[in-house]
């Protein structure tokens, strides 16, 4: 009897081990996320991973790496760490990390009809940097003048400004209605002034100033600085501006200010503190005799696949599952972001999707200036400009030239 029992047990063990060895291992992909567990974006990603596993059997192992992920990616790529998907700024994915270690997604994207589920301006930008598509947009960004519609309505403003002169009229009406036209935090003075300068000189014109100096001799640069000084003199900046982030932008939420120049995340940041605001977006207005007013700041957090991933197709399919249709809409709604799929809607900023769809001239984050060795000191001068430290635009430009 004992012998029989032993034989049965041995047989069971052998069958179990053999069965385990023969069974197909479930596919598992590893995803390094820049979010922290518990953040709205992380919650949506985790839900999407769970749903994707239920639908396909592919397990997505998510590692929440936080905002410092960008300091770990190159090391991980060099060591060929076990990561299939990683998340970062699309500019860094294209221009900072080893291109050889990031997968060309062109063919998979074509097969999936990705062009129909994305913004051409962002894809074209990546192709212009790398020569092919190496990342899929997860959270697109757009910049411009974000305004509170209620404040505009209270001031009786019906037409949105398209030129600087019209914007000044809007400012005057807002001031008459006891609403400060602009909020401005010191952290973003460089972005605001850069945007203003782009409208006069274009990014190529600014790059020329960066390389050769001559700010004081450039009438348009002088006029751009003078515009800001005039804005301050007319009292069009909210009290305390330029203030310490996020004190000034929060004044759009309190109703003290009506507009702020930034990227769309400013709206989510203000909404998180004061509840949903009635946001609108104005493309930065045109300057008389200036450059084309078509350019618009665009950016994105995107997803890339390592070139050594053992499951690139599964990784790509999960990315598409996350950035299109239901989960993309959920991401937009939950995290207050612009949907990555233009078929979805952006309830808190209805014009954002169309703005991104129609933009053909992307502008970077101070791209034409931020490689200058004195960029740090330039940013200080921009804040000083908004602090009203310069009597004239020429004084400001002379200070800029002194940095060369």
């Amino acid at each position, binding site marked *: 009897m004992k012998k029989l029992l032993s034989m049965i047990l041995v047989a069971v063990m052998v069958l179990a081990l053999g069965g385990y060895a023969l069974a197909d291992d479930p596919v598992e992909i590893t995803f390094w996320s820049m979010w922290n567990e518990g953040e709205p974006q992380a919650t949506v990603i985790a839900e999407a991973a769970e749903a994707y596993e239920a639908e396909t059997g592919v397990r997505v192992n998510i590692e929440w790496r936080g905002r410092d992920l*960008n*300091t770990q990616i*190159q*090391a991980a790529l*060099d*060591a060929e760490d076990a990561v299939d998907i990683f998340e970062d700024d699309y*500019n*860094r994915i*294209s*221009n*900072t990390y*080893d291109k050889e270690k990031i997968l060309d997604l062109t063919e998979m994207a074509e097969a999936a009809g990705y062009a129909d589920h994305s913004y051409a301006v962002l894809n074209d930008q990546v192709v212009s940097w790398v020569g092919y598509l190496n990342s899929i947009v997860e959270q697109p960004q757009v910049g411009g003048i974000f305004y509170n519609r209620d404040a505009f309505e209270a001031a009786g403003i019906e037409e949105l400004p398209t030129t600087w002169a019209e914007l000044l009229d809007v400012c005057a009406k807002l001031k008459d209605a006891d609403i400060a036209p602009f909020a401005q*935090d*010191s*952290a*973003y003075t*460089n972005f605001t002034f850069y945007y203003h300068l782009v409208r006069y000189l274009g990014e190529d014109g600014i790059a020329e100033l960066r390389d050769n100096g001559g700010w004081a001799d450039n009438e348009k640069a002088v006029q751009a600085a003078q515009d800001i000084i005039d804005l301050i003199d007319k009292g069009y900046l909210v*009290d*305390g501006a330029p*203030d*310490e*982030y996020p*004190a000034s932008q929060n004044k759009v939420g309190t109703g003290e200010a009506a507009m702020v120049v930034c990227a769309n995340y400013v709206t989510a940041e203000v909404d998180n503190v004061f509840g949903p605001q009635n946001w609108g977006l104005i493309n930065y207005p045109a300057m008389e005799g200036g450059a084309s007013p078509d350019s618009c700041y665009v950016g994105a957090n995107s997803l890339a696949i390592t070139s050594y991933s053992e499951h690139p197709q599964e990784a790509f399919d999960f990315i598409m599952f996350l950035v299109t249709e239901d989960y993309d809409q959920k991401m937009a709604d939950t995290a207050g972001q612009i949907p990555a799929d233009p078929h979805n809607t952006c309830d808190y900023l209805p014009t954002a999707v169309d703005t991104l769809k129609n933009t053909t001239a992307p502008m*970077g*984050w*101070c*791209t034409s200036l*931020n*490689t200058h*060795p*004195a*960029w*740090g*000191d*330039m*940013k*200080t001068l921009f*804040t*000083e400009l908004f*602090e009203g*430290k310069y009597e004239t635009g020429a004084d400001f430009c002379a200070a800029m030239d002194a*940095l060369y």
Partner: protein
Amino acid sequence: MKKNKTLIFMFMAPAVITLLLMYVYPVLRTVAMSFFHVESVTAGLDDWSFNGLANYFKIMHNASFVTSMKNFLAIWIVGGVITLALSLLIAVILTSGIRFQGFFRAAIYLPNVISAVALATMWVQYIFNYDYGLLNQLVTALGFDKIRWLGTDAKLWAMIAAFIYGSIGYYMLIYISGIEGIPQDLYEAATIDGAKKTTQFFRITLPLLKGIIKTTITFWTINAATFYLWSKLFSPVQTEGSTIVPVVYLYDTVFGGKGVVTTDAGAGAAVGVVLTIIIIIVYVLTDKLLKSNDLEY
């Protein structure tokens, strides 16, 4: 007893190997990297190209690095003098037998217990706030206009003030332990001889604290040279010229900044080497200038 050299070696080996791998190797690699053009910290040696002192010339001619060094000097000298002088003064007062000294010690040390992130946020978002900050409430109550405490002119000094507040307690404790180590009979003898408290401080306390002062100067130099968190918290969105310090410059150089996609690990390594040399120079100078072993007690 006969020494068993093999056994000694085996006991020491884990510590020595760990030290070599975790400390000596990264230091040597960083020093070597500072003489090469290397884009990424983890780039293989094949991707290194020798460029002599070019990284050092590059950072020395970079306006942001120069600004960061100026800010470092302000933190080190101004912040150091105020912090060390105030913490010594408080330590002397709290060891003089005043009432509630236990409470005062705990209260002054308290900021060291609180996370620096919370502390800096309190200073930035409340004390220095333009609209409702504590300082501007005081200023307006006195009938003056509000002050932009975090404006470009004042931000560095505001950051140093907040950092001093967070540091005094730590140095105070070090000084207190030093003062309490001085024999009381020296003070009693001085009192019998008619020496005033100030005379006792300058003739007894200060000379016998030379070793402690040397230590605190070295600690402060290391703190100032590796100053990072407070700078980041006073410029949370992107690095600003008014608060940039060498380690933040190093970080931005190695990993890029907001909108900046270029990286240069070689130049970052050069910054690290320069900072290390500064700390060594300060240590050697204080060691030479403050002889702590010329008095015995």
